């Protein structure tokens, strides 16, 4: 710390790969606290693999989460990480993303964090097209608090808060995200490793707000929730054929999302729209170009002169 060099300059974004090789070993931190058999293990393992593949410099990886089983994610990553409060991971990540274009921001969380307590933030981070990647590990149940109904719990499912079966219509995550204005929307399954790898990679490479719903089974409170899309358990695994589905067509994507039980997996929607990051930077650049070569201190002095 004694040789600390503090600058006022925020580093610019760069695609330069890591100088020191990023390995799974380097990225691994605490052993996960998840229950044996939890789908989240596969998500974590895949995230290591994709980061290893993309070689994003370790110090530039930022992992943020809210509250829930899946939101324990940051502790299992040996990167800069922050474990925040329930439902607010996205606005926190927005602050990091907008003020630090040089880092890569990843948000992990569950269905409660994303669709219930943090539902409004999902809408706004999506419409603002904040540059970050958000993985929602959806298990259709509140697991950390031990089996209460979640916003994606199917009607009729019994839980501690719905002893005779859930009565509320669950959220359709794809439709919700389409309406919110996210620019990359995809759906995958923690038991489909290859598919998960492809979707995570594409999400991370997308320039904008990319969000992935990843079905991830809670073996403790909702075992078998996703068997209907898991061939090994007798389900039908159906992926989106992008030669037939135009991913830039939001109406087609909306139709495709009509039935998500079990529905199709893959990229529902992807378009390029300027990110808030870009638009804010453009405003800064235009403003500063108009001011010309003047120091920040002089800008403030001028402002005071006008108050005389």
């Amino acid at each position, binding site marked *: 710390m004694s040789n600390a060099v503090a600058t006022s300059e925020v580093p610019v974004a760069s695609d330069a790969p890591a100088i020191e090789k990023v390995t799974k070993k380097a990225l691994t931190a605490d052993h996960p606290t998840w229950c044996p058999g939890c789908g989240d293990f596969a998500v974590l393992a895949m995230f290591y693999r994709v980061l290893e593949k993309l070689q994003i410099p370790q110090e530039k990886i930022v992992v943020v989460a809210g509250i829930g089983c899946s939101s324990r994610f*940051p502790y299992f990553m040996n990167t800069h990480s922050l474990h925040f409060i329930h439902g607010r991971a996205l606005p926190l990540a927005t*602050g990091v993303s907008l003020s630090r274009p040089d880092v890569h921001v990843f948000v992990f969380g569950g269905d409660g964090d994303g669709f219930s307590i943090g539902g409004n933030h999902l809408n706004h981070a999506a419409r603002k097209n904040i540059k970050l990647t958000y993985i929602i590990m959806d298990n259709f149940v509140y697991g950390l608090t031990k089996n209460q109904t979640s916003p994606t719990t199917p009607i009729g499912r019994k839980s501690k808060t719905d002893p005779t079966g859930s009565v509320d219509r669950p959220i359709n995550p794809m439709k919700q995200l389409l309406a919110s204005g996210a620019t990359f929307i995809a759906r995958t399954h923690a038991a489909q490793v290859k598919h998960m790898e492809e979707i995570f990679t594409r999400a991370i490479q997308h320039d904008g707000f990319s969000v992935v719903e990843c079905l991830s089974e809670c073996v403790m409170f909702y075992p078998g929730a996703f068997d209907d899309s898991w061939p090994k358990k007798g389900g039908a695994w159906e992926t989106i054929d992008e030669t037939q589905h135009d991913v830039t067509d939001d109406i087609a994507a909306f139709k495709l999302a009509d039935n998500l039980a079990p529905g199709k997996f893959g990229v529902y929607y992807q378009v390029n729209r300027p990110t808030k990051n870009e638009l804010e930077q453009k405003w800064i650049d235009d403003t500063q170009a108009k001011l010309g070569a003047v120091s920040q201190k002089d800008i403030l002095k001028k402002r005071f002169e006008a108050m005389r």
Partner: protein
Amino acid sequence: MSTATASAPSSSDSKKTLRNAVIRFAGNSQDGIQSIGGFLARLAGRTAQEVMTYMTIPSTISGGPSIFQVHLGSGEVLTAGDEADVLVAFYQHSYDSHFGALRQGGICLYDSGEVKEIKHERGVFHIGIPFTAATVEAIGGSAKDRGKNMFVLGLIVAVFNLDKEKLVGIISRQFGKKDESVLRNALLAFDAGYAYQIGDIEKFVLAPGEADSGHRISTDGNQMLSMGLLAAGVRYGAAYPITPWSSIMETLRSELPKYGGIFVQAEDELAAVSMAIGEAFAGHLAMTGSSGPGLSLKMEALGYASMAELPLIVVNVQRGGPSTGLPTSVEQSDLMQAIYGSHGDTPRFVLAPKDVEDCFYIALEAGRIARKYSSPVIILSDQALSSRIEAFEEPDIDKHWVEPTLDLSPRAVDWKPYPLDKTTQHAPPGTKMAAGKYPHISGLEHDEWGHPSGNAKMHQQMTQKRRQKLLDAAAEFPVPEIHGDTTGDALIIAWGSAWGPAKEACERLRSEGHKVSAANLRHLHPLPNALDGMLAGFKNVVCVEMNDYGAYGYGQLATLLRAKYADPKIKSVCKTDGLAFRVREIVTGVEKHLAATKA
């Protein structure tokens, strides 16, 4: 009020010299009376006079009664004035509501086209002038009555013999950017008002200003707070609009791009504070702000900021509460919320500016503390400070400027995010860790590396580590400013905008022979250790606050002081009428306590 105030008119040509004058404009919010006040305040600033303004705004969208009061003085001006020397009434309802605010023998200028019934009481000298008709005549029919504020400004400049030339310069600069006809009409109306033959009325001359030479500026508290945040190195922030905070976020939103920064309008208060915490985690000095209800919404995340030990400035421009309460009125009822709001033991710092000028310096102090202790700092401003205009010395930017820093230097092998033996200083994303081990920033109780820890001893040690910041700061904070002697019968303690009238009340009590002093507290949490000795010299300590006496008979600061000092000599003068303290309210309140202890 002045020592030589305006008196009832005697002869037409005599000009009486005044040391101060209080003028109240009463009309509707769309009449532009705020801009009359704004022009007078700017003029005062440029003629080395002291000035303070006061306004009430209706909380409706458009329209509704509104006032703007200007106190101009050649010496120190501490309040917006208890009573008005001159009342300018635009309507019958304005006249009826504010006639009582005029002093005995004051002057009332009213729009004779609007005000039909006048009261012949208390020797008030009435002058009816057709503001509306004369303005329409001056500008021409199409303008209707827009511009009557400028007509009235012209009248006031004539009555008080103010520097017309300078004022025309200020007006020209203000309207110069707009369409040419706007300035022409404004000056036409102004000249018509200036030239209007008022008749048999005494004219006044305001004594030359005594303020220090050098550059003086005039502006309001929200502007000064915004400028202070910029000077303190704040480049990132996020907030949600709420009265009376909004003008700070509007200013920062449009100013920050010049400085390469970004201010985000968030979807709600919870997102706003979360974004700001994200910016702080990213390595910046970040801020958020709101008014009372919004601060309540931020509380969970503020608890996180204390736990995770992130530096953050939070501005709360207080208004009348609870709930939506009195959204456009002043109150100081968020002190307890600022210090103790949130869940768990959440050490944080609370500061309050004493006047408009101090809004700038309090922001610098907040930035210094937030960085030094890696902690949230709440600035408690209030509605009165936010909107009133004062004139004062321009801050020395070269002296106070803080260059923003982002420290991404690699951290040594022995570096830890939450060391038990020293204050936390985080390593933001982008920083390489020599140990190859990256920090976790956590809201769970954690060990020195940020790993979750439910260990009982660790929670005690970490709680103590966070508390230690308050103890260190209390020892470091400066001795509070004291006005008067260090011993006496009573020490008046005031914070925030109550300081101006409290200091003036102290002066008045001293001139009446009372042994009274007054102290201002800028550091409200933790209280400076230096306060201990200060209280010892007085028989009574009277806290003057705009909040309620509560269940036990004491205001919020008084309650805290009683908790700390366990001394029955600590008393309260409180009020909750949504208006700034009048000097005489404080004088009366303190006298009552003095009498009680003497009896």
